[in-house]
């Protein structure tokens, strides 16, 4: 190999701050996103810690009701819009999509950098809102409370979310165009990795759902500042309209979090089972089906909001239908493992965790999609537990699994053995301890968003807080061993897992332009059986 400057790996391509903050390299932008969302995750986790501390005792003694309302609101806003939504797409998607399709970058590299700046601008608005005392509307911003009555930083937080929404839209746009236009020769649609399919489906939601959130929050802000009366009944508006518009985005937003995680798991499971993925076409179609159906179910958040019974029945029906493509996915992962040679490497432990937690989260979602059952557990901890199983159990397991799977590619170094597996296990155990008791609490009638509760609920709440501290420890380990690995870890070869996929065909870390020569694809994905 000759010493050509282009062959330098992307991490060595420059050291000054300009080489990072003005980079258009998708790999460096992915790193920028990774650091930023880790920062936001820490803030969100801090609020969660305070919430769990308060709930240790039945009395509301640690913080006041008003403070508690702000804590869960800011926990939700930070975690949803500044960690979960960008997590896998902006970090792993950004890093891997060009590599997986054999391209040198995304279609619009400068737009990609701009997306990061827009994201950070939105983040700054939201941080300002927190620094000036936060807000207490809940992450859902329900009107007329948010638009007419709430004191606090509703304006800044709303603007922050609108701005970061445009970052989502532009990222999704970039991904769709890239997947259409920059695939390597021979990489037909039927040969795309399922990670790419998952991101294609996610990007469709980014592009088509996010603008509705933007305009909804804009109307809320306009009503708050100019009192024009769109959602506030005392001004003639209709608060239910806000809920329709809000959930039109926010239900699909859950699929923005879960679809990319499914894509990650679909890469990990075949690799550590040494088996071709079972039912490739069904898996790709299921991603698109989940994205499409996701637009037709928003009303299941509004069974008690006064929408018509017939609307409720239709929304309930469509919500049940989502179980079909989701079930196909779980079934196919399990079928892939069947008679495979399974290795319990760290990414695989996360994938197992994902499948288990997603299954519980999905099945309890069916309870909530049932009209009668939903009324019983409406606004209780049952709902809280359900969506944490999907959003934390599912999405974060997928994110961490993906980080551990592609880490050798991202930084060209390996992480130690032992610690990562242990922390994955701690996260799994801690997570279940935290959130399974909440299903029971909710079923027994503990409402969400209260900072005090009857004494008979204390045992389960203590269990939940104890679980949260284990979960927290599990999250802290990776900071240390991954940081160690980044600077000191043993060098990784191009393909340490013997995985298929174009991203493993180039060096670790990849050179600036990803591939020395444009790769030519001649085989189907996941051909593990041919090369054991």
């Amino acid at each position: 190999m000759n010493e050509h400057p282009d062959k330098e790996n992307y991490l060595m391509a420059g050291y000054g701050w300009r080489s990072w903050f003005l980079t258009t390299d998708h790999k460096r932008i992915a790193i920028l996103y990774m650091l930023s969302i880790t920062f936001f995750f820490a803030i969100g986790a801090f609020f969660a810690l305070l919430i769990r501390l308060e709930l240790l005792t039945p009395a509301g003694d640690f913080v006041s009701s008003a403070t508690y309302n702000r804590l869960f609101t800011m926990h939700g806003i930070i975690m949803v819009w500044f960690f979960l939504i960008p997590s896998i797409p902006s970090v792993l998607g950004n890093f891997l999509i060009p590599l997986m399709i054999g391209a040198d970058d995304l279609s619009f590299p400068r737009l990609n950098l701009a997306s990061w700046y827009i994201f950070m601008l939105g983040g700054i608005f939201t941080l300002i809102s927190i620094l000036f005392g936060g807000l207490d509307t809940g992450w859902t911003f329900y009107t007329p409370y948010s638009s007419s009555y709430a004191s606090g930083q509703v304006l800044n937080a709303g603007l922050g979310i609108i701005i970061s929404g445009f970052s989502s839209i532009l990222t999704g746009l970039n991904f769709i165009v890239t997947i259409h236009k920059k695939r390597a020769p021979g990489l037909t649609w039927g040969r795309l990795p399922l990670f790419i399919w998952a991101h294609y489906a996610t990007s469709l939601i980014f592009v088509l759902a996010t603008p509705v959130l933007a305009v909804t929050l804009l109307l809320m802000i306009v009503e708050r500042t100019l009192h024009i009366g769109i959602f506030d009944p005392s001004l003639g508006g209709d608060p239910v309209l806000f809920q329709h518009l809000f959930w039109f985005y926010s239900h699909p937003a859950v699929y923005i979090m879960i679809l990319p995680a499914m894509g990650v798991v679909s890469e990990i499971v075949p690799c550590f089972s040494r088996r071709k993925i079972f039912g490739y076409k069904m898996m790709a179609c299921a991603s698109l089906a989940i994205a499409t159906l996701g637009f037709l179910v928003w009303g299941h958040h509004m069974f008690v909001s006064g929408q018509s019974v017939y609307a409720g029945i239709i929304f309930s029906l469509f919500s049940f239908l989502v179980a079909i493509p989701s079930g196909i996915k779980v079934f196919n992962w399990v079928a892939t493992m069947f008679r495979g040679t399974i290795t319990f490497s760290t990414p695989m432990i996360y994938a197992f965790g994902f499948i288990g937690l997603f299954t519980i989260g999905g099945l309890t979602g069916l309870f909530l999609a049932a009209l009668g059952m939903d009324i019983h557990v409406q606004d209780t901890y049952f709902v809280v537990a359900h969506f944490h199983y999907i959003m934390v159990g599912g999405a974060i397991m997928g994110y961490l699994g993906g980080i551990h799977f592609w880490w050798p590619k991202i930084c060209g170094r390996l992480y130690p053995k032992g610690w990562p597996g242990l922390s994955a296990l701690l996260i799994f155990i801690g997570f279940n301890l935290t959130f399974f008791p909440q299903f029971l609490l909710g079923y027994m009638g503990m409402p969400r968003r209260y900072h005090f509760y009857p004494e008979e609920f204390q045992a389960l709440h203590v269990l939940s807080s104890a679980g949260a501290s284990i979960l927290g420890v599990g999250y802290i380990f990776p900071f240390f061993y991954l940081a160690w690995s980044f600077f000191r870890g043993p060098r990784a070869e191009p393909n340490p897992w013997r995985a298929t996929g174009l991203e493993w065909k180039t060096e670790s870390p990849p050179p600036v332009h990803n591939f020395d020569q444009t790769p030519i694809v001649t085989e189907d994905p996941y051909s593990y059986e041919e090369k054991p």
Partner: protein
Amino acid sequence: MTSSASLEDSALMAENRKRTAELGMWIFLASEALLFGGLFLAYFVYRYSFPQAFAAGVRENDLILGTINTIILMLSALFMTLGILAAENDNKKSSLSCLIMTAFLGLTFLGIKSLEYSHKFQHHLYPGGVFMPEKNWPVGERIFFGLYFVMTGVHALHLLVGIGILAWLIFVLSHKPRVRDSTVWLYTFGLYWHYIDLIWIFLFPSLYLLGRFG
């Protein structure tokens, strides 16, 4: 590599770039459709709830100024297209003058729009509970004018951004010896410009016509 082959190559790459940029813009416009879609949804929901008030609100709007503005935007679309055609024929001078005309018409639209806004203010037709002098103003009309300001405001903002980008394009083009190489930019931007016109084509009947003569 012979020079004719490399010429063919660069033509192919230019074609590729054009298609990529075009696809990106179409996806952005699809996203914008949902953005305005949310506003139109709110409009039609309340139109259904307050048909009389909305008809009264429509009659309050100045049909003549609205019609003039519609014609102005249609003309600007024509000049945009002529500008792209001239650029394709590498006619720098006529391309630039067409684009300047487009931007000028866009500015005129905004000028007339602000004239309409100031008429509204003089008639105390502006949003805001604290600013509203007549407290017992009918609810439906309050919502109509609230939506009127939001919808035309978001549209005007898009137009303003469009004029800004157009001014930058004119600046860049005027420094290039061959405008033909920049048709990708013009073409992609043209999609956006026509799209804003199209939004107005829906806004105009909703805010100035529906229910006026009923």
